Structures are given as C-alpha cells and as structure tokens.
C-alpha cells in the first residue's frame, strides 16, 4: 500500500505539474485518462466532453476502447450509476463502472468514468478518480480562460480590421459585403446580408466558407423563405439567436440575426450562420457591436452621398442652365465636382451674346469652398455677365467687380478671365483679359495646341485692378479653351501636374472631336491623372466654325 500510495502521489504530482502546459482539450484526455489504468482492476477509463447544452461533443478513452457502438452506453453511464453493467461491457469483463462529473461553472464540462473488473478496490478507484477529476477541472478552467482571452483578442482585432475596411468605402452594399467577408470564417461559417429598400428586406449578398454548399441551400425556396422570415422577425424585434435542430443544407446549426440600425432607421440585417459548437460562437454583444459599426459606416456613407448630391445641385444652380447660340461659334462647357468634395466650390463660367455681335465668355474661380465662397461665386458671375450683357467694356466690368469685392471686405479673391470674341469673315478675333487667371489654350485645327497669355492680379486683392490683356485669332476649326486651375494642376502620385505631362497629348488627341466631347474628355483625363482626389474642374470651349460647318 505504501509503495502504491507513493506511486499514485507521484502520478498526481506529475498531473498537477502538467496542467499548466496543456494547450488543448485533446491533450487533457491524453494526460488524465491513462494513469488510472495503473490501478489494480481498472480495465478502461473513458472521458466524455459536453457542450453547453449538455450534448456530448467528444468521446475519449484509455484502455478499453470506446467504440462508436459504445457511445450510447457511455452517455447512459454518465447520466446515472447503472443497476447492472450493460451486456456489451460485461462481455468485455467489466463488472463495475464509477462515473464522476467534471463540472466547471459556466464552461463546457465532461464526465470521467473508470471501468473495472471484480478485483478492483472500488473505494480506492473512486478516490483516485475524484483526484484526477480535480486535475481535469483545473485544466479545463485554465484552458477555457486562455481560450476566452484569445477569443477576446480575435474579436478586438476583427472589430479594428473591419472598421478599417468599412472606412475605406462609402457604398452601402460594398460595406456590408466587406463586413461579411471579414466575419467568415473568423467568427462564423457564413453570413447573409439583407438590405432594406423602401421598407422591404432583400438578400443582397451571401458569404460562406463553403459557397457551393450555401448556394445549394439557397436554391431551396423553403430555406430562403425561412431565412428571410427570420430576418424580418429580427427587424420586428421577435427573433434572436436560434438553434436549428435539423441543420439545413449548409450544415448550419445556429442562426444569429443582427439588425443594422442607425439613428432609428433600419438599414438591413446581418444573419450569421454557425456550424460550430456553442462554446465557439461569439457572444451576442460582440455581434451587435459589429453590426452597429457597420450600420454607422453605412449611415455615414449615405450622409456623405446626400451631401455630395446637394453640393452638385447647388453647383449647377451657380452655373448657366444653357449657353447662348452665337453665329459662327460652337460652344460647350463642363463642370466636374472633385471626387472627395463635400462643399460647394467657387468655379464659375458664363457666355453672353451682346447686341453689337460680340460674344463675351467669362470664367473665374473664387478662392476657397463653402457657403461664403458660393455666395461670392454667384455674385461674381451675375455681376460680370450682367454688365457684359449691357454692353459695358470687359475692363470696366472687371473693375466694378473688383470694387464690389473690396467694398464687402471679403478676404477672398477671384481669378477671372474674359474672352471677347468677334466672328469675322474668315477668322474669329479674340480679346483676352485676365485678372490672375490661368491663360487659355488655343487648340489649333492644323497644328499643335498653344497657350495664350495670362497676367493680371486676382480681383479683390488691390484697390486698382491690374488686368492682363492679349489678342488671339481663331482660324476655322480652332478652339479657344478656357478653364480653371483644377484642370491643369491635378497631380499624379509623383506630384507631377497634368499640365506638364498629359494635357498636351490629350488635346492633340481631341483636336477634331466635337466641343462637347472635348470638354468632357479633357476633364475626365485630368481627374483620372490626379487619381480622383483633385479639385473641381470648369472647362469652357468655343470653336470657330469652319466654312463647311454650315
């Protein structure tokens, strides 16, 4: 007895020492099941692992094998001490079964049982088994604690990475697709995304670790109807996490809907699909947090889009609805709002046909953005176009605008260019007046495009305006291109400006294009060159008609 006690004490000591090194439940079984086989009369030691709902999720053994046919017997032994040993075990020499529960509060526990013949000291085996159960309980407690900690780290990392992903896009469906992709398979086997349009929920995307399996499941109307019903119930507050007793075709055992709601508005539903055991399903709070962040990202994206639409609408109101028709001239204009712009810009243009047969084309740029810049933009355009329409000389019109800006005390200045075009019998003569505005370009029909002259000082800066003046001639088919600096100053990733690389090739390519296409394409080329992060671009093109143009 003394030697045996010493041996068992040494075994127990080894078990307790090994507890700290265990990293997986399977290692635990390998550690705690075999030692009892050293006790006289012990034929086998079986271990059952239970999930939180009490179902057995794993069967392990040492000694007498626990075959598939024995699983029900083992579960029965775990439930209650038998009146008599089942025949299947009796045939293999088992005469007694001692079963003890390994309970760990709030965690998945298990059952250990020792199967003995008639020679075993049952009291001693029971005592030894109880001591091993203590070791197992401590090991499970540590394992579960470590797993909870790791799971928390994973959830934190997922939230951080999902937030990064969501910040990178503004489109609702793309945001949701990214969330679903992030979640699968890190926290769920699948994720269905329902979006809400006009109070109707519809499945907009689906992600699963095994897409073929999910697609097959979603091909069954009964399944899709059931999932859709669950999503709608979740919106109505009548559905939470549910277990599926008969898994549908995608193998899903648990469904968890989370409503995407921001500022009281339902944007959709995320429906998580789990094949895994309950202990590996993230807590509801975490899934709610993920859905909340997604909803917030979508809401922000929608607000941004709304603001962009408002800006574009306001910008249109600051520009002429249409350009006049003038004999001998083709005209077209294009205004492109910068991609990331959320405030009204200060670019403007207009064309007026004067009673003396000249056509006055003006373009300008109020520095800055926002409501104040927009108000000045409207004022500048209307002042200039009204004065020019009434026959006031362009120099005097620019002087009046300069006085108005100085009188209002605004710190903002305005660059402006005015082209006075007079169609003649063979050519169109152009008088160009510039108050600090980028020089226009003449796109020649027969030869390379060439830059005009700028000059002058922006209006609103000094009391006496300084105006640059120059003369240009447009032969039939030549085009006067007036623009704001957003066109020429867009920069590529290396900081090179559009003006210094692509502008001239683009204009050569578009030389024979209709003016409507010219203004549209040159704007697009500049925006693309700048990678979409540029300023607003206003372009006004006026082409001298050729004799064959009619």
């Amino acid at each position, binding site marked *: 007895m003394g030697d045996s006690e010493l041996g068992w004490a040494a075994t127990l000591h080894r078990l307790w020492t090994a507890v700290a090194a265990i990293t997986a439940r399977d290692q635990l079984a390998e550690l705690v099941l075999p030692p009892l086989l050293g006790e006289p009369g012990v034929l086998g030691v079986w271990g059952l692992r239970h999930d939180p709902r009490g179902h057995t999720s794993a069967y392990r053994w040492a000694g007498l094998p626990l075959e598939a046919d024995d699983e029900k017997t083992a579960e029965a032994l775990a439930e209650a001490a038998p009146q008599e040993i089942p025949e299947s075990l009796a045939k293999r020499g088992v005469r007694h079964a001692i079963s003890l529960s390994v309970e760990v509060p709030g965690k998945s526990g298990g059952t250990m049982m020792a199967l003995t013949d008639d020679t075993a000291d049952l009291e001693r085996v029971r005592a030894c088994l109880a001591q091993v159960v203590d070791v197992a309980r401590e090991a499970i407690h540590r394992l579960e604690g470590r797993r909870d900690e*790791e799971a928390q*780290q*994973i959830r934190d*990392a*997922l939230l*951080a*990475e999902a937030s990064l*992903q969501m910040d990178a896009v503004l489109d609702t469906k*793309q945001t949701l*697709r*990214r969330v679903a*992709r*992030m979640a*699968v*398979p*890190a926290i769920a*086997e699948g994720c269905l995304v329902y979006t809400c349009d006009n109070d109707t929920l519809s499945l907009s995307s689906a992600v699963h*670790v*095994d*897409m*073929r399996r999910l697609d097959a499941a979603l091909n069954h109307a009964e399944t899709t109807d059931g999932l859709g019903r669950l999503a709608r119930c979740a919106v109505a507050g009548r559905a939470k996490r549910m277990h599926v007793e008969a898994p549908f075709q995608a193998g899903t055992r648990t469904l968890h809907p989370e409503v995407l709601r921001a500022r009281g508005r339902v944007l959709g539903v995320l429906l998580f699909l789990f*094949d895994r055991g309950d202990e590996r399903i993230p807590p509801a709070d975490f899934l709610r947090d993920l859905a909340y962040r997604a909803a917030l990202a979508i809401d922000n994206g929608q607000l941004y889009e709304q603001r962009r639409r408002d800006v574009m609408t306001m910008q249109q109101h600051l520009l002429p609805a249409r350009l006049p028709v003038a004999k001998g001239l083709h005209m077209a204009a294009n205004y492109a709002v910068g991609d990331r712009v959320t405030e009204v810009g200060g670019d403007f243009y207009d064309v007026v046909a004067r009673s003396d047969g000249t056509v006055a084309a003006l373009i300008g740029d109020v520095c800055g953005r926002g409501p104040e810049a927009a108000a000045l933009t409207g004022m500048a355009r209307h002042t200039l176009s009204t004065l020019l329409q009434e026959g006031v000389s362009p120099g005097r019109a620019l002087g009046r605008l300069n006085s108005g800006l100085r009188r209002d005390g605004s710190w903002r200045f305005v660059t402006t260019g005015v082209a006075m075009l007079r169609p003649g019998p063979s050519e169109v003569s152009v008088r160009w007046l510039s108050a600090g505005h980028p020089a226009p370009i003449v796109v020649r029909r027969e030869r390379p495009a060439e830059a005009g002259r700028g000059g002058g000082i922006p209006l609103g800066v000094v009391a006496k305006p300084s105006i640059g003046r120059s003369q240009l001639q447009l032969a039939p088919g030549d085009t006067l291109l007036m623009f704001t600096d957003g066109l020429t100053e867009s920069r590529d990733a290396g900081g090179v400006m559009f003006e210094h690389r692509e502008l001239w090739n683009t204009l050569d390519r578009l030389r024979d294009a209709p003016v409507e296409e010219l203004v549209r394409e040159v704007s697009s080329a500049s925006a693309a060159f700048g990678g979409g992060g540029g300023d607003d671009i206003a372009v006004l093109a006026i082409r001298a008609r050729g004799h064959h143009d009619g």
Partner: protein
Amino acid sequence: MADTDPDFVLVVEDSEEDVEAIGRAIGRSHPNVRLEFLRSGADVLPRLNQPDTVLPGLVLLDLNMPGEGGLQVIQRVRAEPALPHLTLVVFTSSEDQTEADACYAAGADSYIYKPINFALFRTVLTQTLDYWRARS
C-alpha cells in the same frame, strides 16, 4: 487515382512574409499538418501530377502572383480529370468582388479574406482548415 492525405496542405504563395506567417499559424494550430510551399502558380500542376504522389487534403492559393495567378491555377486544376475533388481555398487580401465571383465560377471551394492582424490571420486559417478537414 492518387491517394489524398488530409494532413497534407499545399500552399501556393509568392510573398516571403505570407509564407512565414502561414507556416507559423498552421504550425501552431495544427502541428500534425504537413505543409509544402510552392512559390509560383505554374508549379502546381507539375507537382500534383508527379507519379505516385499523394494529393493534399487542401490547397491554399494566393490570388495575385506574378505569372500564373490563383485564378488560372483553379481553372487548370479543375480542367484536370485526375483531380476532381481537390479542395481549393483562395486566401487573399483582394477586396474585389469580381475576383471572388471569377474564382467561384472557376471552381474554388472557398474565397477567404487574408487579415493583417496575425491573431486574426491564424484564426481564419484555423477555422478554414478545421472546416475542410471535418468535411473530408
């Protein structure tokens, strides 16, 4: 038909950092899994068609590689009559949905996002391997 070893995972990945991270992640989560790395998509079919070879339980494929990319590998593997049941998992940081659709259309089994955070990276690989090993 060649035998399949569920404990053998073939990784096709050109990035040095990702090769190291995949090796470290799967080495910790599945110490019994044998990993073999190919650095180019063009090496996949010759490797799978070696005489008397044992096929992997799963092929983990990067999408964007110089030369033959993941999508072309999927197309070529699926066109091979001797490899009908090979599990092909695309593991990529690409966010382009059209690429995901193209991979599924070509016959990929999974299209998995490659996270930046290593703990998440390891979890994604663990769950993917657990899922497909349980199905094999």
